[in-house]
């Protein structure tokens, strides 16, 4: 993995990242080697804080996507109460909005990520903190999604199911089965 020179070791870097690293080195006016060393130092600090780099990197990508797509943070109790207030007369409107929002997210994941289905799973796991379990199984030409939550309301479950259906649509999948009950969503789709 590494080769030794005087006080230095050679490390392998993916060729795809070289351009990006070179750009950072130009912006900062530092050598590529310095950029790599700074990254290693940061990895050591991140690790000392008890985090791992992959987790930080995945969170960052997901949050960046939310930011681009117009996501904002709100206390979950407040969101539940808003949905509860709007639901009786505005259910159809909400369902349409959540489906459309899901479509945008699906299209973004498709364009932005090399493996959009994996990204979709990370997206749910890392940003839907109200879910206890997220399962996304990719088969030959179909995807099965299962979400379990002990805190989601019935309305929240239905809206999340519609959001996921929207994501599938954005990923050019056709939903063939969508079952939900309070706290449980099972959805299947095909290419």
């Amino acid at each position, binding site marked *: 993995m*590494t080769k*030794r*020179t005087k*006080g*230095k*070791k*050679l*490390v*392998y*870097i*993916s060729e795809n*990242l070289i351009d*990006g*690293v070179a*750009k*950072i080195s130009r912006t900062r006016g530092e050598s*590529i*080697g310095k950029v*790599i*060393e700074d*990254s*290693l130092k*940061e*990895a*050591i*600090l991140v*690790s000392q*804080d008890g*985090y791992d*780099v992959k*987790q*930080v*990197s995945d969170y*960052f*990508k997901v*949050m*960046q996507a*939310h*930011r681009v797509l*117009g*996501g*904002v*943070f*709100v*206390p*979950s*109790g*407040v*969101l539940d*109460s*808003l949905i509860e*207030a*709007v639901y009786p007369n*505005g259910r159809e409107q*909400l369902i349409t*909005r*959540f489906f459309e*929002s899901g479509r945008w997210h699906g299209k973004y994941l498709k364009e932005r990520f*090399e493996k959009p289905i994996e990204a979709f799973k990370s997206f749910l796991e890392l940003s839907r*903190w109200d879910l206890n379990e997220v399962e996304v199984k990719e088969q030959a030409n179909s995807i099965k999604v299962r979400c379990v939550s002990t805190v989601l309301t019935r309305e929240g479950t239905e809206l999340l199911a519609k959001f996921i259906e929207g994501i599938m649509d954005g990923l050019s999948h056709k939903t063939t089965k969508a079952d939900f009950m309070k706290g449980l969503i099972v959805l299947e789709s095909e290419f």
Partner: protein
Amino acid sequence: MKSGRRKMLAAREDLVDKASKIAKSKGFTLFGMINNLLELSISAEIMGITLEEAVDNYSTIRAIKNASFTLVLESLLYDTADIAYQRAKEKSLKTWFEAGVWVGKHYISKGTGDQFATLINDLKAFSWNAPDFILEMRGTEISLRVLSPRFSDSYTLLLNRFLEGILEAFAYAVTFSEVGKGTIRMEAVKKEA
């Protein structure tokens, strides 16, 4: 990563050794860990922030997550806030105020140090919809200003109550308040124990 081709670059031996040990302890290869990190550096650079700031953001996300915040589409939030406010004004204001008190108490229970400043800093970091979120502290007095041209009338009023709830939890008494569409200005003083 699109291709499996690799290049070799030199880095300080002690850093490589340390990073290699960390990678091994986490079950990664050094190659995998360095590349994850460089991907993160590049993404952060595109957003105009440093790797260190990206890591700080991660800590904040965890804090926000533990404080029971959830993500929702901005336009949907404003629409539902408008409808909920029109249908049940008092109940909506009460819910947002109580949510603010809860979040405030959650931060207080986290430990010592200036938890109020920590909470406001966390909120600032992730109030993507409010580019101007300023807190000034002078002894026992604070001044808070939140501005966003995107806020709806109702959302501004509800957010104001949420912030009042936070102040209540931290035992601040509001001495001045001015709320208009997209504008919240507030001054408060710490209540005497």
